[in-house]
């Protein structure tokens, strides 16, 4: 009897914490999303029930925000995994000293506030930023390039935030592969590309799937990149939540966006393999 009960006792603290910090706020958010929006003062009209917020999201520009945010998250995840995987493979080939330098380069931006990182990127990409100034000074261009306040700069910003996690995760995944496996494949006649395609990639597949899920989940909530570096017309769900909750004061609509973002994240966690599973077909049996 004790053997059955004891494991449940051990998970009570974790369950309580999750209930208190995630499940309860989620239910509160769902409830607020079903309230009527404020008329004049206040943030919502209490003790009401209405699907008006959901209707207004799908009737207006809401669908385009939803699609833009999803594509933005997919883009950031895809590029982060591509660059991160390449960087992880490169790090594996380096000497210990150079590998430590790479680790420092990867982790250093994580030790400072993302706000400082984004101000740095603004300084780098801006009209009077280092890149434009250098290009103008060297007479390669006459007018500054539009490197900021667009989709590209928002993408750069979010990739910059995501890539350290992706790289470190995939580096540990690569390190768990026995090096003799590569030698065995080469000895059996495989060239470097075939070793990568038939050994490295499929063996990293579980790791890639996990980091793909996490990366999408993080980037569906992209906020700082689009806010500081993006074009105001290409907003994301998080920016819209901020706008509705703190600038307009419409909490029910902000909550509706919160519910939609959570639902989108859940959908991507539930369908993890779809976007990249075609790359690995027929290799397991």
């Amino acid at each position: 009897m004790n053997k059955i009960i004891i494991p449940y006792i051990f998970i009570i603290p974790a369950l309580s914490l999750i209930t208190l910090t995630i499940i309860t706020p989620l239910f509160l958010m769902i409830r607020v999303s079903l309230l009527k929006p404020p008329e004049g003062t206040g943030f919502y009209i209490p003790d009401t029930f209405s699907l008006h917020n959901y209707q207004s999201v799908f009737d207006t520009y809401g669908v385009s925000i939803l699609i833009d945010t999803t594509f933005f998250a997919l883009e950031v995840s895809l590029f982060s995994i591509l660059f991160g995987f390449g960087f992880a493979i490169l790090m594996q080939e380096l000497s210990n000293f150079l590998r430590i330098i790479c680790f420092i380069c990867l982790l250093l931006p994580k030790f400072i506030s993302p706000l400082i990182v984004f101000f740095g990127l603004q300084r780098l990409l801006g009209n009077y930023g280092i890149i434009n100034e250098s290009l103008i000074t060297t007479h390669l261009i006459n007018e500054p390039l539009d490197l900021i306040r667009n989709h590209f700069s928002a993408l750069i910003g979010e990739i910059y935030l995501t890539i350290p996690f992706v790289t470190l995760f995939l580096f540990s995944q690569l390190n768990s592969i026995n090096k003799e496996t590569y030698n065995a494949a080469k000895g059996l006649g495989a060239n470097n590309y075939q070793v990568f395609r038939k050994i490295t990639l499929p063996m990293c597949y579980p790791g890639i799937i996990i980091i793909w899920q996490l990366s999408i989940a993080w980037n569906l909530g992209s906020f700082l990149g689009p806010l500081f570096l993006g074009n105001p017309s290409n907003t994301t769900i998080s920016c819209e939540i901020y706008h509705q909750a703190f600038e307009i004061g419409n909490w029910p609509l902000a909550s509706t966006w919160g519910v939609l973002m959570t639902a989108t994240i859940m959908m991507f966690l539930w369908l993890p393999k779809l976007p990249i599973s075609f790359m690995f077909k027929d290799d397991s049996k």
Partner: protein
Amino acid sequence: MINKIKLENLTYCYKDKKAVDNISLSLHSGKFLTILGPSGCGKTTVLKLIGGYLFPTKGSIYIDDTDITSTGPCFRKIGMVFQNYALFPHLSARKNIAFPLEIRKLTKNECEKKVNAISELIGLTQKEIERKPSELSGGQQQRVALARALIFEPHLLLLDEPLANLDKTLRTNLRKEIRRLQKEINITTIMVTHDHEEALSSSDLIGVMDQGKLLEVNDPKIIYDKPNSVFVANFLGETNIIQADFFNISKNGMVHIRPENIKIGDQANECNWKKKGIITGITFMGADFLIDLKTNEDVHFKILTRNPPSFPIGSTTTMGIDIESVWLIPNNLEDI
């Protein structure tokens, strides 16, 4: 099929240390060479140099007079079984075995036929080859690794301590299987091991290595009975290394006598050299008894006898040696 593999002054330096030191040897087609040596002596490095996984600091490797020293492993057509088998964990045993064929773009039918044929030869059932490596026993994994290394008909087969991770019974069986296969396919094979029994029972030739140097390459019987150095004599099993002047064979140097070549008690009477001594220890070895005997000159001998000794520890008895079985070691002075 190749006629010969030749290593010429092969040297490999790791940082400042010579892991392989000026090794030269030549192996003819269909022969089974075992490189024997203690851990860290450089024997696996030699195998990796031959396989192309490492490139020598100095020296050359030839297959039939073609210099392959700087050729990459994927172009050498050399099969290798790694110590931990290095099977691809995400592929089934069938896919593992078919891997070299798929790389060479053989049709699905050809792959299937060849995989089935080699699996039958190696002793793997259809059910076993559908499993993933993690679902196979150590012995089955070893067979899969062997089948994968043989399926593309390599010029040469390299075996890096292939039996090290198996229990004794399985090791003995697979040792015989490997030898049978090697003879049946007639493939030139180089195996690396630190187990002298494995080397003596499987090989056409044994090479003994120490500290990166190849000390001797010879026929198993010759290298066992007439080693050219004290190290080789010691490494190939229990032996007695005694000053040569004790037997009046030579004024300098050392001789070696295997414990099974020394008789004790009544049996010693048949020998042409006899000496009295005190029994200082008796060890039961399973099939045999190992007896420690000390002569009046304080020289210690190890004697191996099949019959249970009838004399207790501390008693005096006679030991006898046929003086023809005493071997004067040629290179002993530098080895001592």
